[in-house]
């Protein structure tokens, strides 16, 4: 077992475990902290996939900002652990569980058995791909952040429109949330 394989399984267990914890904790504070842990695990998974910059962004944005906001809101408004954390309807609950179970089975089954699909094609010669990837990496090993630069170049040429649009979106949301947070309830006072 090479260190990389060990890392993958370790992180996979961590992610799935803390993901389940999000689902199962009845106290929202613990849910949020588990989610933060999942985010950190996902960031680590990104590093094993050589997406260093994205891993850093995952840490800064998700773990460092979004989840802090969640935790802060839960603490600020003192949202307690619930007596009844899960939906109660027996039939709808059962249907939901069945849907979830079926979906998970289908996706996993589809991935494993999908020989004809794109995924199957891709995973069949995954070894060759990895070899190629490694050789490609050797080539650009010259600069430490060549991969990040590649990302930057693609972002500012091919995806420039999305980039600008997101800028507008973020500003719009900054304005909108302030308005929302300020509102003292709706016009239909009860």
């Amino acid at each position, binding site marked *: 077992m090479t*260190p990389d394989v060990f890392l993958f399984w370790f992180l996979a267990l961590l992610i799935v475990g803390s993901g389940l914890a999000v689902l199962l904790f009845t106290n929202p504070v613990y849910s949020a902290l588990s989610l933060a842990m999942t985010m950190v695990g996902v960031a680590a998974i990104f590093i094993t996939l050589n997406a*260093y910059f994205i891993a*850093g962004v995952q840490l800064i944005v998700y773990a460092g900002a979004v*989840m*802090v906001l969640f935790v802060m809101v839960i603490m600020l408004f003192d949202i307690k652990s619930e007596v009844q954390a899960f939906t109660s309807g027996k039939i709808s609950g059962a249907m939901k569980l069945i849907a979830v179970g079926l979906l998970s089975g289908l996706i996993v089954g589809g991935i494993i058995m999908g020989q004809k699909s794109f995924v199957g094609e891709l995973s069949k010669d995954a070894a060759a791909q990895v070899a190629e990837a490694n050789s490609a990496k050797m080539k650009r090993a010259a600069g430490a*952040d060549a991969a990040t630069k590649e990302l930057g170049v693609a972002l500012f040429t091919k995806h420039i429109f999305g980039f600008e649009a997101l800028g507008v979106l973020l500003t719009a949301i900054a304005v909108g949330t302030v308005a929302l947070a300020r509102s003292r309830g709706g016009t239909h006072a009860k």
Partner: protein
Amino acid sequence: MGHDSFEITINCIKLVLIFLMMVQAVPILVWVERRGSAFIQNRFGPNRVGPLGLLQLLADAVKFLTKEDFAPDRAIRPLFYAAPVFALIPATLAFAAIPMSVPLEIGEYVFKIQGYDMNVGIVFILGVSSLAAYTILMAGWGSASKFSLLGALRASAQVISYELALGLSIVGVILLFGTFNLTEMVIAQQGPLTFRAFGHTISSQFLPNWGIFYQPLAAVIFFAATFAESNRLPFDLAEGEAEIVAGFHTEYGGFKMLMFFIGEYGHMMLGSALMIIFFFGGYGIPGVTVADVRQWAAGITDSATQISVITTLVHFLSFMLKFVLFLWIFIWVRWTLPRFRYDQLMDLGWKTMLPWALGNTILTALVIYLIS
């Protein structure tokens, strides 16, 4: 983690050593802080235990260890106990990514004098240190005390507000060096100060090629923001005694308190180290390049290993010198400036430092764009 078990072992030991170094630095810093504050305020400070009061460190440690382990009844125990443990992690993880000297070459092995070389150094450090907010929130919530909660909310709001100015001031630095990697930044700062513009090269003989000469504004903003990030005076609103007792660690005592201290001083060390790397040439020595040092070492001994050891040691010494200097500045400022009011703090962060950092970024980009 490495090519063979020997390297893996060495790397693990290295990491533990870095952590122990940080832990050891904390009592020393506490002592310096107490003596320094006494010096600034014309008092004596701790001077009874041992020479110059140096053994006070030991006495403190023993005292912390023998304190009663205490948690209030209403506290949420898992969070209450986990918070101080987590307090150690972000600062240490980030600090371990700091290159402290040139790599050591022993035979075929190359050991970097840093915990690990994340190739997106800055982004990794920012990401990891942004996790520090959880510690604060966990402690504040877990204590079940209103002072703790208020302190935690204040502290985390302050930390995230200044993270903006911090992150933005670094953009100028990245623009300057064109890399995220800390080692490459240090290498870029070697040699004499050289400006290149419009095909001319202006070189100064006596000034080093440090970032501070290119990014003075970013340096000021960055330094100020690190004060806020590590909750130090003049930005220690999280524990403004007059308002909210001791902030988020109101309910903590004994060894748990010490662990928070380690985290806090860890942030301070991280700030100093980053300051050195971005703006003061890292482990580089002004006026001399690494090659010069290696040549000088070759004059003393013939063994390649010894040359490498000497070079590494010299640069480590240079790094430590600057490091200690900045830590002293941290302490010095603490005992010189008064505390801000909370609204002033937020105003400074959002309405002064953020726009100025933005202006610095635009200016840097403009200058780079125009001269090349």
